[in-house]
């Protein structure tokens, strides 16, 4: 039990901090309320800036342009980015496709796809979920039939984050119907400019559309775009997901802590009949509860990293982290609404809106937190079955 960092790591932290301080424009800070369009532009520009600074994908092996950073260095990097309130970038390519290609990609695939991701030139999105394959992802039905040296794809994907921005999509498609459902799935990279592809943004309850539907109508994709073997796509995707999920949250504790401090500020600055809400004993209980949860989430992340550093394999801890922070986030944003009272009605661009109506957006957006990337119910199943060994 020792929460101090080595001098080398400390030095690495200084380097990251110095760079980000120099290179992050004040107006790009992530917690500044802004429109989706503004956010996209900044995300793209930031990705390019990271590349120029040599920080594009520090976790990637050096041979592919990364730094081969240790897990602790990844933690530090993410913490510093969070501390500086830097944008998170459009990270599907770096965070999800990249690691998949290292492990399952051909040399050609790596050569073709990794450099543009690194440079921030090509944006990727994920094509996993379908209207009838949500929690039950393996029930996916988007059909791919081999026709010569191509796959011909028909079907529909949904919940593809940034789909409308993306150039390419990594997707799971069904290539075999006569075997148990996990065994007939193939992992394939699809150029979204291919004829037959239609991307449609989904309007959300926030009034914004981060998520998209993608329709495939006789879309011809070269077989060389298959990652791993035909019909082995489920395992390709799951391996990466486990990997990705266990490091996806490295910067979250600090981002949540910052959000918590903004919540405390909201309570301090919101007066009700002359009295700051931060002095209200009932609100104080709830703020303290959030404080405890945000801190504990950090410890959950730290403990996971430490066990990885000690050489333990990533397991279902990612489910715990995800379940934990998503439920916590909902409580935090609900508390913000409670603090605001009737002001909680006022959204962005309304006269009298508090903090530019940002908490309203966060409140609505947080409803997705317990659904996307595995509902809380699915996470509880995973925890109960994989960690506690309860029967299916």
């Amino acid at each position, binding site marked *: 039990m020792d929460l101090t960092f080595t001098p080398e790591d400390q030095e690495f932290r200084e380097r990251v901090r110095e760079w980000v301080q120099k290179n992050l424009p004040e107006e790009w800070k992530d917690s500044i309320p802004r429109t989706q369009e503004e956010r996209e532009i900044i995300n793209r520009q930031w990705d390019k800036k990271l590349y120029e600074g040599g920080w594009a994908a520090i976790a990637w092996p050096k041979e592919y342009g990364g730094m081969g950073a240790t897990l602790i260095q990844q933690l530090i990097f993410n913490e510093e980015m969070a501390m500086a309130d830097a944008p998170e970038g459009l990270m599907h390519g770096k965070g999800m496709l990249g690691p998949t290609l290292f492990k399952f990609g051909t040399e050609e695939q790596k050569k073709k796809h990794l450099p543009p991701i690194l440079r921030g030139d090509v944006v990727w999105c994920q094509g996993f979920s379908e209207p009838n394959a949500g929690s039950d992802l393996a029930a996916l039905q988007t059909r791919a039939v081999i026709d010569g040296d191509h796959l011909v794809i028909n079907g529909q994907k949904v919940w593809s984050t940034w789909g409308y921005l993306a150039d390419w999509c990594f997707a799971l498609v069904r290539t075999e119907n006569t075997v148990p459902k996990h065994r007939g799935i193939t992992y394939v990279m699809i150029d979204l400019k291919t004829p037959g592809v239609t991307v449609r943004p989904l309007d959300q309850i926030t009034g914004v559309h981060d998520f998209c539907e993608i329709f495939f109508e006789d879309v011809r994709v070269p077989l060389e775009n298959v990652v791993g073997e035909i019909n082995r796509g489920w395992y390709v995707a799951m391996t990466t997901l486990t990997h990705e999920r266990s490091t996806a949250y490295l910067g979250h504790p600090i981002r949540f802590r910052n959000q918590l401090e903004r919540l405390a500020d909201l309570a301090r600055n919101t007066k009700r009949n002359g009295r700051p809400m931060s002095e209200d004993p009932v609100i104080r209980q709830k703020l303290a509860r959030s404080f405890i949860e945000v801190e504990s989430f950090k410890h959950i992340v730290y403990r996971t990293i430490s066990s990885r550093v000690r050489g333990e394999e990533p397991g279902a801890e990612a489910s715990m982290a995800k379940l934990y922070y998503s439920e916590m986030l909902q409580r935090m944003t609900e508390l913000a609404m409670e603090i605001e009272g009737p002001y909680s009605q*006022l959204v962005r661009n309304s006269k009298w809106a508090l903090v530019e109506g940002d908490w309203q957006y966060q409140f609505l957006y947080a409803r997705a937190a317990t659904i996307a990337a595995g509902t*809380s119910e699915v996470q509880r199943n995973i925890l109960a079955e994989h960690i506690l060994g309860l029967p299916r």
Partner: protein
Amino acid sequence: MNFGLSEEQSMLKKTVRKFMEDRCPTTFVREMMADAGGYSPKQWQEMAELGWMGLTIPEEYDGMGMGLVELAVMMEEMGRAVLPAPFVETLMAAEALLQAGSAEQKKEYLPRIASGELIATLAMDEPEGFWEAAAIKAKAVPEGDGYKVSGTKLFVPYANAAGLIVTAVRTAEGAAPEEGITLICLDPKAPGVTVTPLKTMDQAYRLCEVQMDGVAVPAARVLGEAGQGWPVLEKVIRKYIVALSAEMVGGAEKAMEMTVQYAKERVQFGKPIGSFQAIKHRCADMLVDIEGSRGSLYYAAWAVENDVPGADLAASAAKAYCSDTYFKVTAGSIQCFGGIGFTWEHDIHLFFKRAKRLETTCGDATFHRERIAELWL
């Protein structure tokens, strides 16, 4: 002893449900969300023709002379439909007139309200405070036989559409904040009044800022005795929160029905998701919360209507309970719907956002629990 609806009340319920299904489907609600005024004058007139604007107005003023239980029945159905219109506020402004208005005032306003000609609303909250007497700071200084009023009212429902705003202002600083409050019949068209619609989360409802800048209010427009406005307002609020509670119960029930329906149809892992206890028990809890809330609601409606001892407690209990329930049920519904529940296209967010607005109107659950403690302990 009958804790349930009479035949007439059941009939009323059916009529309103039928109307709402026909005339207020969610496609209509969505139209109104995009509409500048936020409601349909045509629909308003249709409802008026059915006599609903006069539901709780005595027959002598062309109303139907019914009570709070009937209003609760109606509001439940309007809640199911997420009705975009200042229905309850109009009736509550009428209530203020009934409580404190002079014979002339009643004659002037009530028949026009009952006929649907006059939309009315209430202005209480202000930028620096809300839900309590202390919040009322808009200043009225004597001028001529009346007052000159200045101040800002916030979250005023449909002030953009109203011809009458029953407004609480302060004519004196008393020892207690409840003293010195006066109700006035504000004409939104009067010089010095500026109405600004606000952008709200519940887009199917208009909340406005009402700015009063040296507005001349003649004595004839003062409602009841000067300085004695708070007790009147309290009585109005007591009915108002019961009506809102009914809207919440109706909305929650509809949300639950939608969820249960989906849980029966949506198949994942080879089974309807409603067969999984995570969903099934959540739905059962919704049912229990809704039935518990409905009990508290109808008891409150009956108790307030008959002014029995404990009616204040009952009203606050209903508002607190129904607020919690509507939010909990709609949040749970979104979770059961999963991804599609997060889309704009799906209707569940209309209910979720309505829940949030109603919760913060005239005191949230925490506020009313504290009020229960005050009255009870």
